[in-house]
């Protein structure tokens, strides 16, 4: 089931116009801050209404300006993990995760929550308050909470950006594991080149409200569409000079 996106939005002088397809697997939005990556995710989620265009999921129309179709975000069953922590501060880790199981029924909710706690190694934290756990753990809980509803697509808005290196690595492994188990389109926003190059099945380079190039990472690195893309994905950016051996 593919996510098919074609949207236009004008906002405070910023002009966004993107069109792409996301198949099951990981699509990575890569680009400078302010390029329109988060804005696009919010429009797919239904948190922001585009001015024009069409968003469909496997043939189901979620938004179509020409026929005035608008599916409310609650009804889209799309998971969203926010850049900043969004765990409910008045609920424990376990209850945050259970909150994700709206309409599942008590028994099924508990069963799924316990399974997710185990899979994301969060069991020991179940009774803690969000304020008592680390940033990396919070994002894992947020991911678990989103997975409760068995989303048909997943939008991750720089979920690792506030984490330190070690936790980032952990989160990447955690995401890779989730990706193996689920066969749904996942869109990850990042401006971390390592993430973009190592995780992506499909890389989408976003610049100034446009997708300037899309394709497998290796293809974009070897055949960048223009100088800006070349500069963005240059593997030289990753080189640590004093470690190079030759």
């Amino acid at each position, binding site marked *: 089931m593919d996510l098919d996106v074609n949207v236009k939005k004008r906002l405070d002088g910023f002009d966004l116009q993107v069109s792409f397809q996301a198949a099951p697997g990981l699509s990575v939005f890569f680009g400078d801050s302010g390029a329109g990556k988060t804005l696009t995710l919010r429009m797919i*989620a239904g*948190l922001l209404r585009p001015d024009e265009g069409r968003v469909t999921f496997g043939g189901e129309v979620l938004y179509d300006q020409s026929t005035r179709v608008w599916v409310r*975000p*609650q*009804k889209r*069953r*799309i*998971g*969203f993990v*926010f850049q*900043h922590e*969004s765990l*409910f*501060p*008045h609920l424990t880790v376990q209850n945050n995760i259970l*909150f*994700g199981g*709206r*309409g599942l029924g008590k028994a099924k909710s508990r069963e799924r929550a316990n399974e997710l706690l185990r899979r994301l190694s969060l069991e020991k934290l179940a009774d803690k308050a969000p304020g008592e756990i680390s940033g990396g753990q919070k994002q894992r809980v*947020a991911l678990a*909470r*989103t997975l*409760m*509803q068995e989303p048909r697509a997943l939008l991750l808005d720089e979920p690792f950006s506030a984490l330190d290196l070690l936790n980032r690595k952990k989160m990447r492994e955690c995401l890779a594991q989730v990706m193996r188990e689920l066969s749904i389109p996942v869109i990850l926003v990042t401006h971390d080149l390592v993430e973009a190059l190592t995780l992506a099945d499909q890389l989408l380079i976003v610049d100034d409200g446009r997708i300037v190039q899309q394709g497998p990472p290796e293809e974009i690195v070897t055949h960048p569409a223009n100088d800006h893309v070349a500069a963005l994905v240059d593997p030289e950016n990753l080189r640590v000079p004093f470690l190079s051996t030759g």
Partner: protein
Amino acid sequence: MSTTSFSVYLSFKVALVATSMVVLVGTALAWLLARRRFWGRTLLDVMLTLPLVLPPTVTGYYLIVLFGRNGALGKPIYELTGWTVMFTWWAAVLASFIVALPLMIKTARAAMEAVDKRYLEAATMLGYSERETTFRVLLPLSRRGLIAGAVLAFARALGEFGATLMVAGNIPGKTDTVPIAIYSAAGSGDWSQANTLVLLFTGLSALILYVTVKLVGR
């Protein structure tokens, strides 16, 4: 029941009933002002804040104009039921309600506006309707503000004097709340009665403020 204990009992009864109404109506209005954009929103905000700045006698005067036996609302009520709210303990409730309402609205609204939008968006993305999100996320996260607003409203209702005197009068054994009883006692030179009521009331008010500070923190 002695006149002193009747006044204390009446004051608390009036303040409790008024505060319950203030909490329900005030929370709803605070939500409306915090979460909705509509025509006349600023005007509504101004109207609801007015009792905070107007002299209580002016508020009381408006209440007479509205609810008096010949008032815009009072007249049809009287014609239908033969009952008028004026000079009953319900008039004291009405006066306290109107005067205490802005305190609840201001405090609750500030608390709701301080709730980070991403919590509400997170609930939305988990499938929760706006109503569910309000009750399960917004209100729990505004809890301290709601409690503070309720306590402030209660304290204000308990101390209501001016508007109450205008609409409920000073009827011994019927509408003489503590502030009004103090006014009568001092006016008629009954200093021991006035002293008892004043000390009692100061103690109770201090206690309420202490509890609020403890609950809300800092």
